[in-house]
């Protein structure tokens, strides 16, 4: 048997989501001659129509996070937003500065901080506790006189662990330090209100919430926006902070996706939380199974588990009927297993054996039951083979 003929059940919504049909239809309208295909920078009717769609979409996207539309900049995705927030905030100062982040952050945050270090700035990497949480007191202790920015993600991309952003923001406010939040995994899944949270910068992306890939946004509070140095130079779009012709179809798709997410958010959050519990209960009685992250402070739909005595790549390879993510480094013998799980104190072996299942709109109880049966079968099969 080849094992790959049947289309696997998609349970990797934290990696990306399919574009919703309504989003695709709205995007399609912006791609054709008879639709809104113009360059929004053009002064003619086609351009003005495109500009109108852009601004309408900006309002839709802003509403999802409780922001004012002018405070939103469109980017190519969360990676660019994270880079712009971190590099743009620090480089503009013209002096040596210090930033604080966590060792469990996404690579796009960690690598931007490392780039700052190469440029002569300094960075502190907070170690989360065993559940993946960063305490406000821990952050406060890491702040220095020269600290200008803190970057902490809302929901972790591997474990789903949700940080107490309001508490961290309060610390930052007390010390007059800007707070950037990577909300790629939480926007559209958890309620976010940037103004009540006291966040200065917030990154998110369309493709995690049933929108298209290649479009994201950076919320920048007016004070913070004024001091952002661009990464891209050119036509001066997005108030001169992010040059480049605006991708009308992607922005329109992003807007529709955000509007739908906002409407569905409470019901989906409740449904996915219940299904995640069902999934966990289906696996929890296996010997040597460990949940990575926090049992309750977790983004809806995300379950990350490690299995003692199981090699992650073999587990993934045996689960031919499921499309899930692994904590293992499957592509190279030299790569380290998940830095996120290692930062939680998991051993190399346990990090390597981790499996992330992330549920979405297409997931229901039958899908969860199929996943439980497949994972149990494969764990038991590989354990029977192990020395």
């Amino acid at each position, binding site marked *: 048997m080849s094992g790959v003929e049947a289309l696997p059940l998609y349970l990797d919504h934290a990696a990306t989501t399919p574009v919703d049909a309504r989003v695709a239809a709205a995007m399609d309208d912006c791609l054709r001659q008879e639709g809104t295909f113009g360059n929004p920078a053009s002064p003619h009717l086609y351009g003005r129509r495109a500009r109108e769609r852009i601004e309408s979409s900006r309002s839709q996207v802003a509403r999802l996070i409780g922001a004012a539309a002018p405070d939103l900049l469109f980017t190519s995705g969360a990676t660019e937003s994270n880079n712009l927030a971190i590099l743009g905030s620090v480089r503009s100062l013209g002096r040596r500065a210090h930033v604080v982040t966590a060792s469990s952050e996404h690579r796009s945050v960690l690598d931007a901080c490392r780039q700052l270090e190469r440029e002569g700035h300094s960075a502190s990497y907070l170690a989360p506790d065993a559940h993946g949480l960063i305490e406000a007191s821990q952050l406060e202790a890491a702040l220095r006189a020269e600290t200008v920015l803190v970057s902490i993600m809302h929901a972790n991309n591997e474990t789903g662990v949700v940080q107490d952003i309001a508490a961290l923001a309060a610390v930052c406010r007390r010390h007059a330090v800007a707070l950037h939040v990577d909300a790629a995994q939480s926007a559209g899944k958890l309620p976010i209100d940037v103004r009540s949270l006291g966040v200065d910068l917030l990154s998110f992306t369309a493709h995690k919430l049933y929108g298209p890939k290649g479009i994201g946004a950076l919320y920048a509070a007016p004070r913070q926006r004024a001091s952002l140095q661009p990464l891209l130079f050119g036509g001066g779009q997005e108030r001169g902070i992010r040059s480049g012709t605006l991708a009308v179809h992607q922005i329109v798709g992003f807007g529709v996706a955000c509007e739908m997410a906002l409407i569905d958010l409470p019901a989906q959050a409740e449904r996915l939380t219940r299904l995640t519990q069902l999934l966990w209960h289906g696996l929890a009685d296996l010997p040597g199974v460990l949940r990575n992250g926090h049992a309750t402070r977790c983004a809806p739909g995300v379950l990350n588990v490690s299995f003692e005595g199981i090699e992650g790549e073999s587990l993934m390879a045996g689960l031919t009927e499921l499309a899930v993510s692994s904590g293992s480094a499957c592509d190279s013998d030299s790569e380290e297993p998940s830095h996120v799980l290692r930062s939680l104190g998991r*051993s190399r072996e346990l990090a390597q054996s981790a499996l992330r299942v992330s549920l979405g709109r297409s997931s229901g109880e039958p899908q969860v039951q199929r996943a439980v049966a497949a994972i149990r079968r494969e764990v038991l099969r590989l354990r029977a083979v192990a020395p």
Partner: protein
Amino acid sequence: MAEEDPLGPRVRALFMDLAHAGDLLPLAAGEAQAVCTGEAGRTGEGTRVRFSLRLSGTRVEQVRYRAFGCPFTLATCEWLARELPGCELHGAVERALEKAVGTPAGWAATLGVPAARLGRLLVVEDALRQALATKAPCEPTRRPMVRCSVTDPDESMTDSG
């Protein structure tokens, strides 16, 4: 290309049917056959393999293995467990194995294991060598031997010289 299984058809088939995983129990003293066991690698390093071989003189009768590792490792163990029975292992361990089933590079070529995984197959080979290196004390028909349990008279002469 996207539809292709990254494991390739041979590795996939072997990986999904690890029928020879298990152990061979040591035989009682005086029986005509010997069971030798060898292990290599570490779980913490991603690969650990144990082989048990039942030998009748120089002939491999039965092979079982236990393995922790990537799918390529498990598939290679399974393949060796199918290939080795019936082989005669003459001479020094390294050469005997090579004559019987080839080298790890050859296994990789036969099964379609990527070059980047060759290191894992070397652990598999080490486990087999370890198993054969323990063969001498279990040999039912003792002969004077040096090094790793060779029974080919000519090789023995060379080694002992």
